[in-house]
């Protein structure tokens, strides 16, 4: 009798274990669910159901997703996207911390890192910035190698982090100008200066020395004909008055010349391709930020601006010239954030140029007004996609 009781108890014990184990496995399956993950794994094409669950604008297939060091690059043109016109015009710009391209017909998202901005292009490479919580680094994408950081500014010690921001290529050279605080003892902890970097391991060279506690310099642009001559925005205080001024610097002779008056706050200059003009933004009397252009004259080793004229009134940011100098692209505020606009120049019979009607290029989600847009040809648009699609190493 006792024997039967033992076997019965054991059988109940095992059956109970099996039952509860089954319940537990069901629970485990519930645990494995990820209801807040809208995206399919990217090593396979998304199903229609996946696509329906994904946010608008996210490419649906990503055959190779390079992921390293916190950077997630994604190249995934929509399968239905028409190939870009190789001779057409396209733009590279930033939305929500990601690079986007548009050829005027459709837009494609190039990255999904969420912390990328400030792209700039040379004939054979792309620079952009990835910002983390305490630092930012400049990345290089080119046909020669996978995208790679060319600065290493992150440190576990917060105070030892550095910024690298707003890179531009030095025209005709394998070097770049960038805003940075690579040596905080020389710039002060609260200011960024213009530095020159190589693409290799050589140490950065400080170019500008901003006054302390005004935020530093920004918006550097280099003379296409003489890249040792640069224009940038300087922030400083005269008494209690904040000054925002365009400054011209001959790096070779260390000659610094203010280009704009202290009572005409100006910023974000951009050299025209022929180096004869700059486009820039100037604050107007009603606190609007108007688009201007002016002629740059250099005589006796010093520069000056002449014939400054207003092109567009509004809230404008970061104008850039098309490679042929015929058009300006810029960010302008509309009812809901900033959008990409362009203004082409008309050449009159007497040879004078006047700006035409502004055209809005993008609509929808706001474009990042702190990143300069980049003009691309159709071929360059394709190249940029290819450079970014290489696996990151």
């Amino acid at each position, binding site marked *: 009798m006792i024997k039967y009781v033992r076997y019965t108890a054991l059988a109940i014990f095992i059956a109970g274990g099996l039952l509860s184990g089954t319940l537990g496995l069901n629970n485990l399956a519930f645990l494995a669910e990820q209801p807040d993950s809208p995206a399919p794994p990217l090593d396979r094409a998304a199903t229609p159901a996946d696509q329906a669950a994904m946010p608008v604008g996210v490419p649906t297939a990503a055959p190779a997703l390079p992921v390293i060091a916190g950077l997630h690059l994604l190249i995934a043109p929509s399968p239905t996207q028409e190939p870009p016109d190789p001779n057409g015009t396209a733009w590279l710009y930033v939305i929500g*911390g990601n690079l986007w391209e548009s050829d005027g017909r459709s837009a494609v998202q190039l990255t999904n890192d969420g912390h990328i901005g400030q792209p700039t292009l040379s004939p054979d490479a792309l620079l952009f910035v990835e910002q983390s919580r*305490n630092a930012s680094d400049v990345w290089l994408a080119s046909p020669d190698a996978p995208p790679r950081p060319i600065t290493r500014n992150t440190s576990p010690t917060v105070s030892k982090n550095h*910024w690298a921001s707003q890179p531009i290529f030095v025209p005709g050279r394998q070097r770049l100008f960038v805003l940075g605080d690579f040596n905080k003892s020389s710039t002060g902890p609260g200011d960024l200066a213009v530095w020159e970097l190589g693409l290799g391991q050589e140490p950065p060279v400080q170019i500008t020395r901003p006054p302390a506690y005004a935020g530093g310099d920004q918006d550097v642009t280099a003379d296409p004909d003489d890249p040792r001559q640069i224009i940038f925005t300087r922030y400083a205080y005269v008494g*209690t008055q904040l000054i925002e001024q365009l400054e011209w610097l001959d790096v070779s002779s260390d000659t610094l010349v203010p280009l704009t008056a202290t009572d005409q706050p100006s910023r974000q200059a951009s050299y025209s391709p022929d180096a004869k003009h700059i486009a820039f933004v100037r604050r107007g009397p009603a606190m609007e930020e108007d688009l201007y252009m002016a002629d740059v004259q250099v005589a006796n080793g010093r520069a000056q601006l002449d014939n400054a004229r207003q092109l567009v009134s509004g809230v404008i940011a970061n104008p850039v010239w098309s490679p042929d100098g015929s058009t300006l692209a810029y960010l302008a505020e*509309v009812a*809901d954030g900033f959008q990409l606009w362009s203004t082409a120049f008309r050449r009159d019979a007497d040879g004078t140029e006047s700006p035409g009607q502004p055209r809005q290029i993008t609509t929808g989600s706001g474009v990042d007004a702190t990143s300069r847009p980049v003009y691309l040809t159709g071929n360059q648009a394709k190249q940029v996609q290819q450079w970014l699609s290489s696996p990151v190493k």
Partner: protein
Amino acid sequence: MMRIVALLAGFVMAGVMLSFGLVLAVRILLPSWYAVPAALLHMTSQKVPAAQAPAPPQTVVQFDQAAPTPAPIAQSDEPTPVTLQPTLAAVAQTGVATAIPERPTAVPVAAESSAAQVLGSDGSGPLLPDRRFNVLLLGSDNDLKFAPTAVLTQSMILVSIDPSAPDVAMISIPRDFWVPIGGYGYQKIDVAYEVGGIALARSTVEKLFGVKIDYYAWIGLNGLVQVIDTLGGVDVNVQHPILDEVYPDDLNSNDPYAFFRLYIPAGPQHLDGTTALEYVRSRHGDLQSDFGRSARQQQVLLAIKNRVQTLSGLSQAPQLVTDLQDSVKTDLSLPAVLQLAALARKVPPTAIRLQVLSAPDFASLGYSPDGTEQVVFPNWSAIRPTVARLLQPSRSAVNAAASGN
């Protein structure tokens, strides 16, 4: 042997049963707590999300076509310059100041003495008066460093509104003003709210400035973020680069004294709630310190006003009220708040006057009598006539009234 195996199997299964039974019980009884392991599981998975932040919809206008969405684009071939409608917030110029360190919270804590009505408790309430009225706006760093009921006011802005003009004056009161606070002797003015709640803060401002405070509104850190995010962000022209090596990281960490490095480039840009909070809260790396911060606060308030102006029919109002339930205290009724929002849409930028009571014109910098605190001494002979002037209708409002507009 069989029995031993069966017993072991039974024990194993019982263990499994116990474990998953516990998980099941927690899942049923404590669903919110249960979410933690699920989130952890998700975080540690090796899958990479396709888009870490939802990618925004982005359409493109045909280059030769008009934009499908309304945009204030010039439609004619008139000679330049062309005007795009500006809506960016302006900023006041302020005085210069040396850096003033954060003040320790050694002042006794008092309970909130005001019968604060949380916004949106019901849909009824009195409307705004027809005459000029004054609102005291208070902002606090209500982070982990402080008891929830005893926070300093990092921001004090006296807003005077004449709805009939319409005309608005905004006067930022430096937090470090060394003033008499009823029952507590001389203190920094930011202590008034900490020790006596809204009642003492209100009466202190009323006595010092000789004005009647009709309403107040207090907002905490998360409240500001929520307001701006609900509005879809604000467009601000950042006046100079903001580089703060020690910006408080108290909202995203358990360490109330943690910090991170902040960088906001200068120029027009769209700020989300978090970035806007960082913009108005940062004080390091700014030569004007708290005075510069006050000017930025006014600038973001104007940006909020501009944003409200662009919203159609205040459709976000119910969401806003929901968002603000725990983050805002005010004695304005919900109808009055909606009235204010509607009024904000009518006030032209030229009818808004901004003033920061900064050094050297309105204050001087120094130390408290015991030498332990850097403080700001108000220059009342300059402040009172300025405040009186600001509380009169502006010239543009007078002109508009005279012309019948």
